[in-house]
């Protein structure tokens, strides 16, 4: 049957791009990009990149609809005999903007995605990076490959393989286009560099602030600023050094300012992020302080000279205790630097407690630590707040796209994770049932004081009996109610002051959302 031509185009609609896209790589690169939270160009892997589909057009991510050319899968495991292939299924739902496509005959086209999708393309070339949270499934060729991948991921502290579904393909075959060579001959795509250092640091900052948001109001506000880019009220954060985080995230570098602490602090952050990898980050800090303090007035110069001397001694053979150093340097900027020299890893900072330190001291230090470690350096334990990884992954990639000037829109980012402090915020009539139960669970897990039990008894006469097992109240009939609860004031005092391990926090969150 031959259909009659529709002369007016009625019934014809623009081709709709597929909702899943395929990326071919190998298991070791997969582990790296899952840890990094982004699908990155080869340069993002440092010196640990194994050649895969990402190196055909450096800076561009080749995504295939439906099938991957078999040559691409083979290329992805050629570098080492121990490499195993895998194909990632991505769902870039919110992707909008300019990118490149390779047409059916291998011709390169500029494309405003998704509107200019023509339907005959063999691949998208998307400016890197993309969020790793867009990976919907990891396709593997065999149960053995699945076992190998699971085993490899467990060798590392920061590969969140468990966040992603694995699928072993029937018949041990990837969705490949057989016989197709790739890339098409004669295609020349200009290489591009992706800005990854700042997004990685920003990712770690988001994570640290998500963990610190429960410690106090300043942390909660700074967390909202970092994730959502705005504050409920402009004057809500009265610490200009910390408040400059919003501007730093917008620009990708230290904003210009006359405020000395703010300028030096964000200058230090920039130096730590962009340091020579062979250089100890503490040296980057000292070098910046020495250079920057030269332009200060004599009084400030003297103060910075003392701080620099204290930091140097702290890194070598120290003659001052932490107490003495905090007493000598009462402001947040030098205290953050002292912490930076006293502790190495983000989780160590989160566990650190000192009575002299204020909330802004810790928050400033958290930003510095995040700049040093980046999201890639964070162990899984710091990524396990529900929703954190996805929220950070999309924001890191979006920031990289913005700083790279690609005009690519990744769509709305997932909402930020809410702190326990927010989740326990009482309503007009106090805590809900779920909040009360979660508070009790957390207080029990953490062995906090402030748990009390209310026993409601009916009217009557009671007899107290003291025996070997303790005191007993004996009465006729039944108890009306036994209510165990937590004193909210004591609960919040402990919540603000105590580091909470992942498991109790997880249990409390489950109860809160039950």
């Amino acid at each position: 049957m031959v259909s009659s031509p529709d002369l007016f185009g009625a019934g014809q609609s623009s081709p709709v791009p597929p909702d899943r896209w395929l990326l071919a790589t190998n298991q070791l690169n997969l582990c790296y990009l899952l840890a990094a939270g982004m699908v990155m160009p080869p340069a993002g892997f440092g010196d640990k990149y194994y050649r895969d589909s990402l190196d055909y057009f450096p800076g561009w991510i080749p995504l295939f609809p439906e099938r991957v050319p078999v040559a691409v899968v083979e290329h992805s495991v050629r570098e080492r005999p121990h490499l195993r292939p895998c194909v990632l299924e991505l769902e870039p739902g919110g992707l909008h903007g300019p990118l490149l496509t390779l047409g059916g005959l291998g011709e390169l086209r500029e494309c405003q995605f998704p509107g200019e999708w023509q339907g005959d393309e063999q691949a998208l070339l998307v400016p890197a990076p993309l969020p790793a949270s867009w990976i919907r499934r990891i396709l593997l060729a065999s149960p053995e490959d699945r076992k190998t991948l699971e085993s490899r991921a467990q060798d590392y502290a920061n590969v969140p393989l468990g966040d992603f579904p694995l699928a072993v393909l029937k018949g041990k075959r990837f969705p490949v286009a057989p016989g197709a060579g790739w890339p098409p001959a004669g295609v020349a795509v200009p290489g591009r560099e992706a800005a990854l250092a700042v997004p990685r640091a920003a990712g770690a900052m988001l994570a640290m602030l998500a963990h610190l948001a429960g410690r106090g109001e300043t942390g909660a506000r700074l967390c909202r600023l970092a994730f959502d880019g705005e504050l409920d009220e402009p004057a809500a954060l009265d610490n200009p050094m910390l408040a400059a985080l919003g501007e730093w995230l917008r620009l990708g570098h230290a904003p210009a300012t006359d405020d000395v602490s703010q300028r030096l602090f964000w200058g230090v952050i920039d130096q730590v992020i962009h340091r020579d990898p062979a250089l100890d980050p503490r040296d980057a800090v000292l070098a910046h302080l020495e250079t920057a303090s030269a332009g200060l007035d004599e009084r400030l110069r003297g103060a910075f000279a003392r701080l620099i001397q204290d930091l140097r001694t702290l890194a070598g053979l120290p003659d001052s205790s932490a107490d003495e150093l905090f007493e000598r340097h009462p402001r947040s900027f030098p205290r953050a630097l002292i912490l930076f020299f006293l502790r190495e890893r983000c989780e160590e900072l989160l566990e650190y407690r000192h009575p002299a330190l204020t909330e802004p001291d810790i928050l400033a230090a958290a930003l510095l630590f995040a700049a040093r470690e980046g999201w890639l350096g964070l162990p899984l334990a710091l990524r396990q707040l529900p929703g954190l990884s996805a929220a950070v992954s999309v924001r890191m990639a979006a920031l990289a796209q913005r700083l790279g000037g690609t005009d690519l829109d990744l769509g709305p980012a997932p909402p930020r994770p809410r702190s326990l402090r927010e989740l326990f915020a009482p309503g007009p009539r106090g805590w809900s049932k779920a909040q009360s139960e979660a508070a009790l669970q957390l207080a029990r897990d953490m062995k906090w004081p402030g748990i009390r039990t209310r026993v409601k008894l009916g009217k009557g006469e009671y007899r107290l009996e003291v025996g070997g097992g303790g005191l007993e109240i004996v009465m006729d009939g039944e108890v009306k109610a036994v209510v165990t609860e937590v004193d909210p004031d004591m609960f919040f005092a402990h919540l603000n002051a105590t580091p909470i391990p992942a498991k109790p926090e997880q249990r409390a969150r489950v109860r809160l959302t039950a």
Partner: protein
Amino acid sequence: MAARRFQLPGVQELGKQQEDALMLDRDGQHLIIGGPGTGKSVVALLRARRLQRDGDDYVFLVYNRLLLLASRQLFGEALRSDTWIGWFRRTFQRMTGNPTPCRGQPWDIDWPAVERLLLDFTPHSHQNLPHLIIDEGQDMPPAFYRSLVALGFENFYVVADQNQQIEPERHSSRQDIQEALAIAPERVVELRTNYRNRYPIARLAREFYTGDPASPPPALPPVPSGGVDTPILFDYRRDQYRATLGRILTLARNQPHKLIGVIAPTDQVRLDYVAGLRAGDAAAGGMVAVRTYASRADVTGLRFDEGGIMVINAQSCKGLEFDTVFLADIHGHRPGGLDTDLIRKRFYVMTARARDRLILLRARSGDSPVLGILPRDPALLARFPRPPVREL
């Protein structure tokens, strides 16, 4: 004291060479060669974890009881580990029915006698023998490896650095291990890049490298001079001894989750430091755990999974790792008299024990052949107090 645990590496911390070593076939004979800081022990441990996860039988063999304790405390009791001598003696007796021939002391195995007994031994072809993962494999004699093969063991994963020998007369060279286990040269994996050590510490260690091409030193990129983590040579006057110990204690209090190793040249120096550190700590309120160990002593009470200070002598430091290392009174080292080659080997081993920070302590009046092997370049070893600038 704060808890201290082994941390798995991040994916970005393990390089391609380490992964090549880790991904070697599960079965067979493998030799991994690398200098200090190349991460060979981490690779060996990850290998053991994999075998454990897969339900394979294995034993992780270490050199002495101190290393056994450290590996169990840091990696967990689930790690199936043992000391190589104790394990060998039990295994030999179980498999052959004969007690292991020894020369007097139980740890002094009579290897020629062992090998003579094994000439008549026929291993059962169907027996399931464990995979052997051997750390610091250079410290076991060639006869150990030959005897294991004669007993029927087939699966070896040996990590070694030929230059980390404190008792060179009892070691195996790379070639010895290759020959004993029939490993083809092309199947040996060489780790040449630095893993976790701070570059300046690995660079200083290389100054003491005695130049055996069979075990290459790690490749190191150029490091800017004057960095905060440059190892320090601290010259103290006799009247500054207590103050110097006070600084070690301050460091321990500032970083209670870190383990500080103080490595002494002699047992007397070890005892002096222990007494001085404990007295200093007691005077300040007793916040720091100061522990000590002498060769072949009881290891009960030693903790590698807590911060604090551990004072040991040079003979016991092999294979251990501390966050900070103080080489105490370095003028007291005299292994082999004036043989600077032996002194260099000892310093190569001792310096490589430091993960983050390395400080050499010397009484200002002390004179010793050690001073002749220390680099003059302040980029490699910063000196405090700084030497006076010579007027031209």
